[in-house]
């Protein structure tokens, strides 16, 4: 709980919270502008092009120019659209993206077990807009609300390509939420709290969850996050070659700009979530002789944004490098690989954690658990195969006719 909000809340506390909200909003908007430029410029470099270079130095004002252009374009509304939902959908996509950033700690001294409390205008507080008890669950809740924006945009457009895009989106985002949640659970196992501030504080001194959870949940989280963001290589939601523009085909003008904004906002906030969960957020080495303003604000901010930049770069790199997945490959990866892997890894981590707590040999316990999990998986696999073989042998023709073919699953 934020020390600012414990006890009586005076006018000063309310003003500080308002200030934090305004600053976070501004930084986020500017960050998105920079991110759009960064992505275009970087992808241009990776493709041996020059990229935007007209508006401002190095084309850095290109996003501003594009935004202004979009605002003044004609606002089209398809005849067969559902007017209310059509107008609502862009905001449903945008607002969750903003809200997630509210729980991300961006600064504060977290070294040597310090809990990141900073003093602003004589009041103690955290450098995050809010630190609710449910912390990271709030992130998951908002990412599940974000599905609505994409889904309703596609449906309310009243045309088929957006609808196909939105059906893909809902299936994809709901599927990958499971592995996303399971890899978060692995982190929570070691941090012992849901609060984002607590998660960062638990990683002080370089004990990043990246190492503590032995990398696997980190990788699973990145893959699932990419799918949640509908970014390449999982951008089937707006696959240009198949669906024109996907869920936002019918959108133009400012409403399209809102979707565009939401997409990049989500990329920035998801990178911030990864930094918070696995890389210790703003924590980093802080020398003893550093004055208060440096150890509380400047150094942590530098650490945070440096870590953030790694993941922003990574998402752009993905886009430049990886070809898009086919829909059935996407579903196979999510359900048949990532979810069993994250569940199994979670079980192994649990046993190791218990072993550490009660003084058993953690390596041996982990190995035994891994063996048991693998054995269970193999037994399940052989059982399924035997059953399928028997089924097939008993009545191969009806089987195929009733249950259809594998090609049907890829038809979305």
């Amino acid at each position, binding site marked *: 709980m934020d020390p600012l909000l414990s006890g009586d809340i005076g006018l000063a506390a309310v003003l500080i919270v308002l200030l934090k909200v305004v600053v976070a909003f501004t930084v986020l908007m500017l960050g998105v502008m920079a991110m759009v430029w960064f992505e275009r410029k970087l992808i241009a470099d990776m493709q041996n092009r020059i990229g935007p270079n007209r508006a401002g130095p190095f084309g850095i004002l290109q996003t501003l120019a594009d935004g202004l252009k979009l605002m003044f374009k004609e606002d089209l509304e398809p005849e067969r659209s*559902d007017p*209310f*939902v059509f107008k609502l959908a862009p905001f449903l996509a945008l607002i969750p993206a903003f809200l997630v950033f509210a729980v991300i700690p961006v600064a504060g001294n977290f070294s040597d077990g310090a809990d990141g409390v900073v003093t602003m205008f004589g009041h103690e507080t955290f450098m995050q807009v809010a630190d*609710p*008890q*449910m912390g990271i*669950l*709030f992130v*998951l*809740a908002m990412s*599940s*609300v974000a*599905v*609505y924006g994409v*889904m*309703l945009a596609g*449906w309310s457009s009243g045309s*088929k390509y957006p*609808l*196909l895009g*939105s*059906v893909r989106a*809902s*299936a994809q985002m*709901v599927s990958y*939420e499971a592995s996303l949640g399971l890899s978060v659970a692995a982190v929570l196992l070691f941090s012992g*709290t*849901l*609060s984002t501030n607590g998660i960062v504080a638990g990683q002080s001194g370089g004990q990043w969850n990246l190492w503590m959870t032995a990398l696997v949940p980190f990788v699973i989280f990145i893959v699932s996050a990419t799918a949640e963001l509908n970014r390449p290589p999982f951008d089937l939601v707006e696959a240009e070659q198949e669906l024109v523009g996907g869920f936002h085909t019918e959108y133009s003008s400012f409403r399209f700009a809102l979707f565009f904004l939401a997409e990049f906002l989500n990329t920035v906030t998801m990178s911030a979530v990864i930094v918070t969960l696995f890389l210790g957020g703003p924590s980093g080495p802080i020398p003893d002789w550093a004055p208060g303003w440096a150890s509380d604000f400047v150094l942590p901010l530098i650490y945070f944004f440096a870590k953030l930049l790694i993941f922003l770069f990574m998402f752009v790199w993905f886009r430049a490098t990886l070809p898009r997945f086919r829909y059935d490959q996407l579903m196979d990866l999510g359900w048949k690989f990532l979810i069993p892997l994250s569940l199994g890894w979670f079980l192994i981590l649990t046993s190791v954690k218990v072993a550490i707590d009660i003084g058993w040999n953690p390596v041996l316990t982990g190995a035994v658990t891994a063996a048991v999990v693998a054995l269970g998986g193999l037994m399940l696999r052989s059982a399924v195969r035997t059953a*399928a073989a028997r*089924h*097939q042998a008993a009545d*191969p*023709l009806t*089987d*195929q*006719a*009733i*249950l*259809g*073919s*594998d*090609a*049907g*699953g890829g*038809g979305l």
Partner: protein
Amino acid sequence: MRVEMFTFLIAGAIVLGGALGVVLLRNPVHNALSLVATLFGVAVLFVIQEAYFLAAIQVIVYAGAIVILFLFVIMFLGVDRIEATERDPLPAQRVVGVVAGLGILVLSIVILLAGGGEPTGQRSATAPLSDQAPDIDRLGKVLFTDYVFAFEVTAVLLTVAVVGAVVLSRRPKGDPIDLDEFPDGPAVAHLSLFVDPDDEGPADDTADAESADAESADADDVEVTS
């Protein structure tokens, strides 16, 4: 006015408005969206009661998964046009619904009048419990000690449900039907599970040409290339 009261009034209005929307709006998608509004309002009410974990789970599970699934089905099966309500499959359900609704209304009013003024659950909890542990800690402790049996039974129940769902929807491995040779193949197989043969098929253009083909085709035409 106190902040809780203010928040309660807004959240309550959203809950009631959403509930009315679920019942009164004509379009199934609008109904589902109203349901989301109601669920959000209830989540805010949980937050007022300092049940943060419950609020988060409410949004993640109900708004984030279950209603999404509703919408998915509504959109995918093309029932998102205004539904025919003339033919009532269960004529008695309206009477039962009205009686049950009135009964619940009367009961709530009686409880509210008997229970005192504060509408925010003043009688059950006026302050956080004595220890300052977050509610998820306490919930977890209770769940894995006092109610561990119920917890495990629920887990088994859910596992059975998942296995059941997988068994029902499982497709064994095999060579896929050659779509060029049998263009009606998978469409017949799939749609026959959902579409009532007496129906005229989904009236929605989004169900593609496949559904149109499916109506004229006979299931016996389907063969396997293997």
